[in-house]
């Protein structure tokens, strides 16, 4: 299925958010996630299904003021 990851279209074949992160190369990475504008904690990722057209944001630490 096609979803949007950090603003870019990606083809994903994963049943849930945890599996999708694995597929995208962030399996071991320290990241924070939001799906369609809502925060998804680490513990909820395996139980969060994905659908075509979902918007996934994968964030990490960055310089800030």
């Amino acid at each position, binding site marked *: 299925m096609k979803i949007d990851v*950090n*603003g870019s279209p990606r083809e994903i074949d994963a049943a849930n958010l945890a599996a999708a992160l694995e597929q995208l190369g*962030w399996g071991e*990475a*320290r*990241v*924070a*996630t*939001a799906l369609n*504008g*809502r*925060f998804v*904690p*680490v513990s909820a990722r395996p139980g969060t299904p994905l659908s075509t057209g979902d918007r996934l*944001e*994968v*964030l*990490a*630490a*960055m*310089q*800030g*003021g």
Partner: protein
Amino acid sequence: MRDFYGVTLDNPLMLGTAQYPSPAVLEAAFRESGAAIATVSLRRERGEGQAFWDMVRSLGVHILPNTAGCHSAREAITTAQMAREYFETDWIKLEVIGHDDTLQPDPFELVAAAEALCADGFKVFPYMTEDQVIATRLVEAGCRVLMPWGAPIGSGLGLTNPFALRSLRAAFPDIPLVVDAGLGLPSHAAQAMEMGYDAVLLNTAVAQADDPAAMARAFALAAQAGQIAARSGPMPARDMAAPSTPLIGKAFL
């Protein structure tokens, strides 16, 4: 002494981590200044997040994640939730921008976000305009720190509305106050601290200096000087001269 959600700072300088020429210079700025708090943000992961996070953690200072760039309460709340998990802290510098040219906080969205986040257990550091009514609403929402701007972010103009900043200090004697944004020179930091503010938060004035580490130290010294002055009871200003040398005993010549 006023503390920051139970944390007493031994240095009234809070420093941003953006815009430095290199990570080594950033580290030197923190080392030279002894800044007690580092602000950080969350952005789309491009493979550099972990290294940056490891470096910031190694500074050994308190971490204050921000919601920079958010324009609505909804965005800011989601960002705060993500930051709490990522940075493992319930501290959040709440920024909700209302105007693109001035980066002025949107007071309505700010208060709405503060209410939701305080209710959810966050310890909110709201970046706000110097308006006393907004300050009251934020305290009612549960904020125990207020961070009025000195001037627009990155402008370096200093304290553009000293009257309002003084009024806030008088109106909220028990709330820690931080001048956040707009400081350009160490004297601006000293001025804020002389008014009885509890800390100053800045980034650009240090990061964009020719020698950021030395400038960070200058800001820290100025802030500490202002803090000592505020605690020492500054004399009231007056319009007329008052001779400091005694008149008694002056020779008749």
